[in-house]
């Protein structure tokens, strides 16, 4: 009887220590689900989901504070991926957040630009090049098309144009009507 108790207690202590050590040694610093969600988001940092960037939105989804259908740049593909990851039912994009559109980038009309640097401060991915009272320009390959630079511009010299790679993209016509959110009419 006593031996059994002692043996079991020793075992419990030993495993407790082992688990404690493992918990410290292999501690996961951030919530892995957040990273996984963040990896699926398009990283435009546009804030259309009402959160100040993709990672905050990912954190909100992980805490179940936000729904999975608030990301217009990601569109259906992102919703499906998130639904798949989180084991939820996919749903159509929330219209309050905006509509899914073709990818765009911005273009600064260099004749009009006064070099105020406001757009540089607004750009979440450092895609605008320039200095105070110098002409600014957008590095098109780095631009995510978040349009955050447009409201601060005092002279409205920033225009939205279709993304370059969008033109060269190999796209095959969808051979069928999108089935996912509509009843199949077959």
């Amino acid at each position: 009887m006593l031996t059994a108790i002692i043996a079991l207690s020793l075992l419990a202590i030993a495993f407790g220590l082992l688990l404690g050590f493992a918990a410290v040694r292999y501690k996961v610093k951030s919530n892995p689900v957040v990273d996984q969600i963040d990896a699926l988001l398009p990283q435009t940092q546009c804030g259309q989901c009402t959160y100040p960037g993709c990672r905050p939105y990912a954190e909100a989804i992980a805490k179940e504070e936000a729904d999975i259908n608030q990301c217009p740049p990601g569109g259906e593909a992102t919703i499906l991926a998130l639904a798949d990851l989180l084991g939820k039912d996919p749903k159509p994009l929330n219209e309050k957040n905006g509509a899914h559109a073709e990818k765009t980038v911005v273009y600064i009309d260099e004749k009009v630009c006064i070099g105020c640097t406001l757009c540089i401060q607004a750009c979440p991915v450092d895609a605008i090049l320039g200095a105070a009272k110098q002409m600014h320009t957008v590095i098109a390959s780095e631009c995510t098309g978040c349009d955050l630079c447009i409201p601060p511009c005092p002279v409205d010299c920033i225009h939205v144009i279709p993304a370059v790679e969008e033109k060269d993209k190999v796209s095959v016509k969808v051979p069928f009507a999108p089935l996912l959110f509509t009843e199949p009419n077959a």
Partner: protein
Amino acid sequence: MKAIIEQAKHHFHGGLSLDGHKQLSMQHAISAALIPDTLTVPLLQHIGRPATAIVKIGEQVLKGQCIACIKDDKNTVTAAMHAPSSGKVVAIEHCAIPGMLKQSVDCIMIQTDGEDRWHPEIQPIAEPFNLTRDDLKQAILEAGIVGMGGAGFPTHLKLVQEKPVETLIINAAECEPYITCDAQLIQEQAEKIIKGIQFILHALNINHCFIGIENNKPDAIQALRQAIESIEQPPTKQQCFIKIVQLPTRYPAGGEKQLIQAITGKQIPINKLPRDLGIIGHNIATTFAVANAILEGKPLIERVVTITGDNIAQPQNKWVMLGTNMQQLLDTCGYQKKSNDEVIMGGPMMGAHLDSADYPVIKTTNCVLVKTKPIQTTSLPCIRCGECARVCPANLLPQQLYWFVRSKDFDRVQDYQIFSCIECGCCDYVCPSHIPLVQFYRYAKSEIWNQEADKEKSDHARQRHEFRQLRIERKKKEDAERKAKKKAMLNKKQGIDTSAEDAKKSAIEAALKRVKSRQTEQSAVAKNTDNLTEQQQQKIAEVEQRRKNKTRQNNNE
């Protein structure tokens, strides 16, 4: 050399027996190339990156002169372009090129002068078998030769291999209906083709090769046999063996993986290339181009094109200069346009359906086919008959793929190996519900590629965003630190002043304190009427009365 002819010992899964329609265009010998007024030479006529133009607008060019070359590393997947005829470069502009992908690239427009003068540097290579393998590769690179079967992979990249190559397979199957350009080229130029094969064998440093050819081309087989027997062994150490393998006429016997399986019995594993198994495949028209480049020094500037199909009065095979307009080509063959005609580059099964004939002929154009569009049948629901899986030469499950593509489950689509699909169209052909299956697979492939590209871009954006946040944080911290440091420095510098200031401050504070305490004292003095005895109160009242009386008297007076 001794010719060996044998039947294929193996076979591939699935496939179809189709009506060949090959006699249509085999009636006459290959007719010589015409010189069109303008030539449109696209800088991308192959798989890979466009070549870099090295001529300027207004420049005179001679036939065979290099007009676009490989600027970067020699291992880049690209090929050089040459002027198909002499003339003047009139423009370099963005034009649509024929193909599945509907791309548009820069094209060099040449206004021909009709003289067709060769560039003086076009000379045959003397003693080609004494060349080193790298020199041979260089010669083929400079000739701008690409795979002429349809895919257009630059040939020089398939010549010298890091891994040892054991087997060379020459693809002469030409399994698609209507197309006869390779068969007729073999009939007319078999000797040159065999010489081309000898050069490729020399470049690969191996001594045997198989020519895979469908058994519906007895004339071509005969021509090959005679050529092999009449040609001497090359003056190299090794002896060459060229074996002709007859394949049953079954589409798609000319698919690279299917051909290799039929000839060697080896299946190419998923995500592997034939070269991983020590096998290299070349198209038979490519070997002719190689022979031309080495024996005569001529770069790839013209090719045999089959012009055939409905409403064409004289279907035929023609030598065509690269860059010739397809419409012009059709017109010379007596084409009467009908409203519901469709122009296809390639065969009816795998060819690219073009929206018009206003495209240039490129290096991979083996056939210009005109077909009457079938009456559009709406596709019916899948009845799960499984016929598509029976005919699939890639051993896939087309039906399962179809369902996954419909539900946009691209992970599962990839699990079911969509990238092994060669888009041969067999499943389409047999589907009783007329479902455009290949269209679905192309859609899925492009969607997967686009998603991968988006993922890469978003990862990049994330990195940049995170770095920006880090930078802003760091700047804030650094600013705060700098401020604190500066203040401390200032204080240290004006050390005495500070103490005087402090004294002043404390003096003011002390004064303020004093005033405050005095005020409180004064208010305490005023409050001495509390706690008085009765006598004192009476005395005060008397005094008050007296004062009042006195003021009244004063008022009366």
